[in-house]
């Protein structure tokens, strides 16, 4: 085999995609809770599981199927010594570091301005922070919890392998 690192990137990616467990836990004051990954989601609002989450789950599982087929295609081509690159599994974990920054700007600037409510939402990637909202004489303080699961750290292995593959290829040229 000509590209063992690319091959292991595909194999580990395939295992990660097929494990039906969430990557991340996110909670807004316990009132809104979600366990999610790019391929599945469970939404919980006021202690009730959101039914609309089922519809979202179908779309995410369809994405899982799409990625699985592409990874299998990648495995077939790599075993035939073809340097076929499918980088989705490299990008997915990285979005989890970019998303909180996007959410920060949406909540503070867009939502805050639209609802005329002063919201101080923290930039939080991993950990716990307090959010406080004042509206109509009421002050609401919520604990925001954002934590990766073990599977998220496992999903970083393909990312590392892909970077390794790219740097080795660059050195060859």
């Amino acid at each position, binding site marked *: 085999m000509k590209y063992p690192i690319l091959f292991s990137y595909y194999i580990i990616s395939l295992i990660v995609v097929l494990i039906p467990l969430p990557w991340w836990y996110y909670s807004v*004051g316990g009132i809104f809770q979600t366990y999610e990954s790019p391929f599945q989601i469970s939404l919980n609002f006021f202690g009730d599981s959101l039914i609309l989450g089922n*519809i979202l789950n179908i779309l995410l599982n369809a994405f899982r199927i799409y990625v699985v087929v592409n990874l299998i295609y990648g495995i077939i081509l790599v075993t035939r010594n073809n340097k076929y690159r499918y980088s989705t599994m490299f990008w997915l974990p990285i979005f989890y570091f970019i998303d909180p920054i996007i959410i920060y700007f949406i909540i503070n600037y867009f939502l805050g301005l639209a609802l005329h409510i002063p919201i101080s939402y923290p930039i939080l990637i991993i950990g716990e922070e307090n959010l406080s909202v004042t509206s109509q004489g009421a002050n609401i303080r919520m604990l925001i919890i954002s934590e990766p699961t073990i599977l998220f750290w496992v999903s970083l292995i393909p990312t590392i392998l892909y970077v390794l593959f790219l740097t080795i290829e660059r050195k060859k040229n």
Partner: protein
Amino acid sequence: MRIKIIVNWGKIFGIIFAILFIFISFQTIKHDYYLGIQQIKSFTNVQNDLKISIVSFNKTNIVLNVNNPLNLSITIYNITGKYVYLKKPYIVPPHNSKDIILIVTNYSELINNISNNTETLTISLGILNTTINEVETL
């Protein structure tokens, strides 16, 4: 001249299988869409169902009834006014109501304040990791 078209079968089959999956799954969860919308509507009623009403009122205490429409328990940490206070925090279980007792320290002053609309209560509630502090005029 022959043009060689490179077909990415991975992407083509991926999209076909994904669409097939969506098509088959949506047949099985048609009802979920309507149920989901109804569920979202029911959450907007929560604000109306979460009620605090006065049960009885006398010289030494006020009994309030708290109705909890949520699937989560609500903790009432404190209710304080100038002449009333809560003796201990109460926990209202999910889908339940509970009577809570406020202690009155000065009855005549309290009545006076209520008639002047100056008696304000600071209510402090907790739902899981959320704390709500609200000021209400009695």
